[in-house]
């Protein structure tokens, strides 16, 4: 229960901050950062948060189902843009793998 409270309070404060910055970043993402900060600075007890967090993260795949079902109304948009979506996704995915891999390797090596 305490863990759920920690999550909710982060979300509530996150929503308030999101409102103040005009929705630039959504409230749940700010809540995620607050959760990280509160754990890091020992405001929350990680042991109390762990069970709820593990349950939510473990069940997360279920939470996407309604979005997937949304395909029944928006499949047209995908079909109409197949070429753009496929090319952009494939090229970009390769670019991210190479870019992130190179940068990490370069800086991790120069450190030692």
């Amino acid at each position, binding site marked *: 229960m305490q863990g759920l409270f920690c999550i909710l309070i982060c979300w509530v404060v996150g929503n308030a901050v999101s409102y103040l910055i005009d929705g630039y970043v*959504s409230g749940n993402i700010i809540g995620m950062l607050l959760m990280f900060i509160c754990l890091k600075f020992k405001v929350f007890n990680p042991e109390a948060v762990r069970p709820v967090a593990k349950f939510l993260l473990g069940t*997360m795949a279920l939470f*996407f189902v309604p979005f997937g079902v949304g395909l029944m109304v928006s499949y047209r948009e995908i079909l109409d843009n197949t070429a753009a979506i496929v090319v952009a*996704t494939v090229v970009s*995915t390769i670019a991210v793998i190479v870019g992130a891999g190179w940068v990490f390797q370069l800086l991790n090596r120069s450190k030692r």
Partner: protein
Amino acid sequence: MIETIINSDIFLLTLTIALYLLGGAIFRRTHIVFMHPTLLTAAAIIAFLSLLDIDYATYREATSIIDFALGLAVVALGYLMYEQSEKIRGREKAVFAATLAGTVIGLLSVVLIAQAFGTEREIITSIAPKSVTVPIAIAVAEPRGGLVAVTSVVVFCTGILGSIIGPTVLSMSGVKDPLAKGFALGAASHGIGTARAIELGAIEGAMAGLAMALTGVATAVLFPIVEKYLY
């Protein structure tokens, strides 16, 4: 009477969870990525709704509690970040730079290529956060007018793609450092890439999980800027 029950919120919600449990059982038996419980469940629900002529809005409304649970899960990702943050001591510079590189390259390349195809704004917004984990991608795309169904599908496919071609692309481009490999997989292909990285080794897996969380945050912060100035 049957019609009233079938159209009720609690029935549609229970059906979704029942199908998800069934999908999970099928996935554990077959272990084929395209038999993912989320995909199986969504496909079965679409078939059910079409057959009984129930519209999507009714279904969305009935399952609105799931949206709430997803919001909680996004906050819970902060716990995952905390767990993994212990593992980067002394590598902050590499982690920070690679997060930035991965996020900027990912956002710019998708947006520019889609623009070159003359794609509408709505679709560009939907596919821009393709490399980050679904809950964050939705939290990024939805408030800015993206189609969440398109986002979920593209994010899922990016995850599969990266986990299949990732190791080959990495060795072809001369990335040998196991930490860099793990990080790249998580940065490009979120949770599915992380699962692949765990197969490569524990340290690769840890780096991938960290990369997934950090690129998620970086994408949430940087995407509004890209959206404002690029298209």
